């Protein structure tokens, strides 16, 4: 909503400047987003009469005009305007005057003749109008010497309001904002005068009756028929105000509808009577699929719950949203049907939203216009049209009212204690009442500490006691409410072991050189191809977005790693090939039966370039798992196709002690890495934090270390390559029993001396007990390990 200041001050006084007004309104909840002063500094432009016109000595289209501006003096200007004629009253910017935009006038030669400033067209002094029309002909109520800056509000600031839905209802008009100002100052409102449109002494050529066949969507429909309407423009001041308010002037008739809409918030529509058919006008539901071409030239396809304005034969407008092209007012329109109506707000909001058509009318109807101003607005508009372009009311086609018209304002009770309790300020009911009265509510006492409040017609947003509490609070002033800390018991405790696990995993990852990423959970279906997921793969079972805006918003992620790989690719494209990222976040798994998806939280990492190897990624996963206190884990080679985005020979499931899959780790399949734009090798891992944290014991316990000496024995063996190191360690641990405290691999060797398809593994075994072990005790245990390796794995011992 744009509010030209001069228009507002016509209805109410404000003691300060525009800045303080903006601040005060904002403090009231009527947020002033900006104060525009496009023509600040404009000065010295006066009305002047052309008293003599002579041709320019050098010919051409230029003329010399002698201007007479009363007490503002006289002067000679050179003008090339087409409409220069003696007697015309025009704007004159003499030397020293400043035009909107800052240009300062001076005496200067135009083709050899000195011009004392210039005579101006409308656009040159910031008014709406076409430069080609020539000098602006000033209205007759102005005289030579009048200051046009004041008279035409040339430097008037505009308040730009950003209205919230509750205040939007009554503040989408100058009158509504004036009411808020009056409530602030306690000053009087100067309401526009009661209208009394003249009757046209012409025969009506068309008489329509009004019919509402959708009484739930249309509460009132008034149609006035006007005849003898002229074709000229609205007065320049009106055009100026409309333009400042953001509405393009379009001739007196349409300008009058817009002027009244801005003035009191009631949208109006004018139809060319020549185009209305069938002797009837009113509101009905659209037929499913009905098509109408609106004023903007667009074909609109309607639905059965949209409301249209229709004559006897066809729709002539989308009710409350936009008129139809078929009945548009033209330059030669002499007879008009003027509509003023009340529509059910929700219906207008629904249609406007569906059509994507937020018009000045629809945004007002959708919030609920003042039901007490519908009739008033129709008459005010008829009066203005008559005043500005002639003619008058030839007939009243009808004024129909239905059940959905809010004829009686609601009555709401306010308890003083309730207001005090919620605001936190000691206010009596009488004080609350005074604030409400200032805002236009009709208040009376209703027992001790209780008020009976009649809501004014323009406050359709107020229906409950809590709404009144809000009105009292904002009238009292939020700024005056003191700051206090609440007492009371502390809140319930908060424990989220999975979140804690995420924090711990993140700290470990950062210590290992990984930086934290935050990637979008919205993924493209294209990810599936990059990840080499075949049709039917479980990871393609994703939560689908029904209304994505772009292809990369089609599904919710099942894994974090694709987002990380994408980020690695992004960094590689920006010359950062070595990169390590991790993320802690939710993934989404569809569930059956319409329940919300599962949202397990995962920890994932991805690394490219240096260090992008299976064992490096696995090391971080191990560290995370171990620090989180989860029990033993096994690493199992995935079955073919289970993890197709990973290197088949360098990937593994991370399997918990109970056989549950905690996640996976591996080098990224070269095709997947390439698809994401990762340069060179990449490794990645992803685990379910909930699963990992579930293995966490109650709390860490201190374990005293043994003071007796440890005995180390080294062991090397050759084995078929297919025997995994994990199995070797398991055999050694089982055979070594309690005395074997630790097994550390220190060498892996393939090649000469070992034989094809075999490798050598070397370990240090540490034996220790709570007493000093004898050599023979250790020998027995170690021999057991050696035997087990030979017997169970076919190891060929080398030392």
């Amino acid at each position, binding site marked *: 909503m744009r509010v030209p200041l001069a228009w507002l001050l016509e209805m109410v006084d404000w003691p300060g400047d525009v800045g303080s007004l903006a601040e005060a309104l904002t403090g009231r909840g009527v947020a002033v987003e900006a104060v525009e002063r496009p023509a600040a500094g404009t000065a010295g432009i006066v009305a002047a009469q052309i008293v003599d016109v002579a041709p320019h000595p050098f010919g051409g289209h230029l003329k010399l005009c002698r201007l007479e501006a009363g007490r503002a003096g006289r002067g000679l200007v050179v003008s090339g305007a087409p409409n220069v004629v003696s007697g015309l009253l025009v704007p004159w910017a003499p030397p020293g005057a400043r035009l909107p935009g800052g240009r300062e006038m001076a005496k200067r030669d135009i083709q050899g003749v000195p011009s004392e400033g210039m005579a101006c067209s409308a656009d040159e002094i910031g008014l709406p109008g076409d430069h080609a029309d020539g000098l602006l002909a000033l209205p007759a109520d102005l005289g030579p010497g009048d200051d046009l800056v004041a008279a035409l509000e040339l430097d008037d600031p505009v308040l730009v309001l950003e209205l919230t*839905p509750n205040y939007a209802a009554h503040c989408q008009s100058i009158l509504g904002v004036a009411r808020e100002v009056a409530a602030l100052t306690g000053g009087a409102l100067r309401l526009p005068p009661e209208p009394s449109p003249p009757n046209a002494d012409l025969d009506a050529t068309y008489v329509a009756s009004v019919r509402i066949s959708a009484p739930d969507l249309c509460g009132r429909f008034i149609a006035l028929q006007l005849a003898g309407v002229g074709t000229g423009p609205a007065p320049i001041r009106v055009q100026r105000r409309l333009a400042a308010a953001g509405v393009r002037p379009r001739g007196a008739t349409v300008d009058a509808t817009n002027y009244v809409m801005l003035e009191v918030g009631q949208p109006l529509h004018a139809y060319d009577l020549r185009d209305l058919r069938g002797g009837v006008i009113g509101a009905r539901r659209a037929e499913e699929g009905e098509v109408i071409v609106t004023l903007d030239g667009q074909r609109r396809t309607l639905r059965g719950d949209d409301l249209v304005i229709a004559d006897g034969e066809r729709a002539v407008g989308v009710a409350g949203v936009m008129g139809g092209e078929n009945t548009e007012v033209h330059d030669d329109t002499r007879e008009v049907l003027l509509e003023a109506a009340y529509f059910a707000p929700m219906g207008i909001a629904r249609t406007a939203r569906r059509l994507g058509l937020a018009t000045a009318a629809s945004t007002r109807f959708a919030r609920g216009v003042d039901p007490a101003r519908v009739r008033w607005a129709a008459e005010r508009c008829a009066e203005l049209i008559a005043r500005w372009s002639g003619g008058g009311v030839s007939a009243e086609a009808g004024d129909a009212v239905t059940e959905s018209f809010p004829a009686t304002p609601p009555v709401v009770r306010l308890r003083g204690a309730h207001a005090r309790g919620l605001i936190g300020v000691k206010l009596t009911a009488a004080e609350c009442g005074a604030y409400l009265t200032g805002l236009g509510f009709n208040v009376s006492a209703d027992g001790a500490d209780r008020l009976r409040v009649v809501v004014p017609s323009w406050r359709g947003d107020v229906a409950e006691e809590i709404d009144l509490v809000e009105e009292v609070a904002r009238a009292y002033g939020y700024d005056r409410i003191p700051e*206090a800390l609440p007492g009371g018991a502390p809140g319930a405790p908060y424990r989220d072991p999975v979140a804690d696990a995420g924090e711990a995993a993140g700290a470990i990852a950062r210590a290992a050189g990984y930086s934290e990423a935050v990637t979008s959970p919205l993924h493209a279906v294209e990810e599936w191809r990059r990840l080499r997921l075949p049709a039917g793969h479980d990871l393609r079972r994703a939560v689908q977005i029904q209304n994505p805006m772009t292809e990369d918003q089609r599904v919710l992620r099942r894994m974090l790693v694709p987002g990380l790989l994408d980020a690695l690719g992004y960094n590689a494209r920006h010359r950062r090939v070595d990169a390590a990222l991790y993320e802690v976040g939710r993934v989404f798994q569809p569930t059956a039966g319409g329940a919300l998806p599962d949202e397990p939280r995962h920890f994932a990492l991805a690394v490219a370039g240096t260090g992008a190897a299976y064992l490096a990624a696995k090391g971080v996963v191990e560290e995370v798992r171990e620090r989180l206190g989860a029990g033993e884990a096994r690493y199992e080679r995935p079955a073919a196709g289970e993890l197709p985005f990973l290197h088949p020979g360098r990937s593994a499931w991370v399997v918990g002690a109970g056989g549950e899959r905690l996640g996976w780790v591996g080098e990224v399949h070269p095709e997947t890495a390439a698809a994401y734009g990762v340069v060179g090798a990449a490794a990645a891992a992803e685990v379910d934090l909930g699963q990992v944290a579930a293995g966490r014991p109650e709390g860490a316990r201190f374990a005293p270390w043994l003071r007796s000496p440890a005995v180390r024995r080294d062991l090397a063996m050759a084995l078929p390559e297919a025997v995994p190191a994990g199995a070797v360690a398991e055999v050694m641990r089982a055979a070594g029993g309690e005395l074997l405290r630790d097994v550390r691999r220190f060498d892996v060797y393939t090649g000469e001396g070992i034989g094809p398809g075999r490798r050598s593994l070397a370990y240090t075994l540490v034996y220790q007990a709570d007493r000093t072990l004898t050599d023979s005790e250790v020998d027995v245990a170690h021999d057991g390990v050696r035997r087990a390796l030979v017997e169970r794995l076919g190891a060929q011992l080398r030392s």
Partner: protein
Amino acid sequence: MDDLAIDWAALKEQAESELEAASSLQGVEEARVRWLGRSGRIALALRDVGKLPAAERPAAGARGNEVRAEVEALVSERLSRLEAEALHARLAAETIDVTLPGERPQVGHAHPLHQVWRDLVRIFGELGFAVADGPEVETDWLNFGALNIPEGHPTRDAQDSFFVSDTQLLRTQTSPVQIRAMQALAPALPVRVVAPGRVYRRDTTDATHSAVFHQIEGLLVDRGIAMSHMKGVIAEFARRLYGPETKIRVRPSYFPFTEPSGEVDVTCVFCHGAGCRICKGTGWIEIMGCGMVHPVVLKNGGYDPEEVSGFAWGMGIDRVAQLRYGIDDLRHFLQNDLRFLEQF
């Protein structure tokens, strides 16, 4: 028997001068062997003591032992001096350019959103608010209906949503966690929670819009809670986040799930109220929305609005991070450019 007399003084003097002359550890060691060794000069001289007349032997022996101790002391003194010199020389030789850059461990960086997230949770934790959680895929009812946003309400327009089914959507705000937290606790009091989380809106991504962003929501429900408490808690929060001089200003506003509602401004973090480019000259920066929990929302949470009241607030984590770090483009947050991440 004069020729048998031992000139201990001369021996000592000679030993002294030899040790003095030894300029290396090895030289000292050679001198030590020469003088104090098993067949060193002093040992040999002591052996000669036996050849002396019996009356002279005790005095000469005692004198010889004295000289040996003196030379021993001399050797160790000479050794330690040379060791000290050698150490000094080594350290001098090891001098490096201390202005060379340090060899830094490769330590990763926490994402700025996460750092801000943690700070906000910590501050509200200090003020007695525990974290509450809710899913990102939410029911239409909890995201809108239960929050007093019925079908057709303009707020639904402003928060264009991604739907995953007719009744489920990606939450457009963290506010549904208010209902979840109340329902989990009702009728117990108080409810004191904050809910940080990710939210989604069907916005075209640009410098100031993102389809994916983050909010933190707070809720306090108890007996006798008033707007003054709301202002008190938010002011305390603002001081803890932006510094003790920070002031707040609450302006009336509108949210369907609170009434009365407000927008909270803080004194500009950059100019402290003087007016600058960031605050557009106003001296104030808008940081959050707040309000008294709407009676309908209290009811939907399982509480009687005649018995209890409460306030709620919500703010954008991304916005706090933008202000804190001077990040002018929202897209940085989800791009994961290491040139960005490594600055935090």
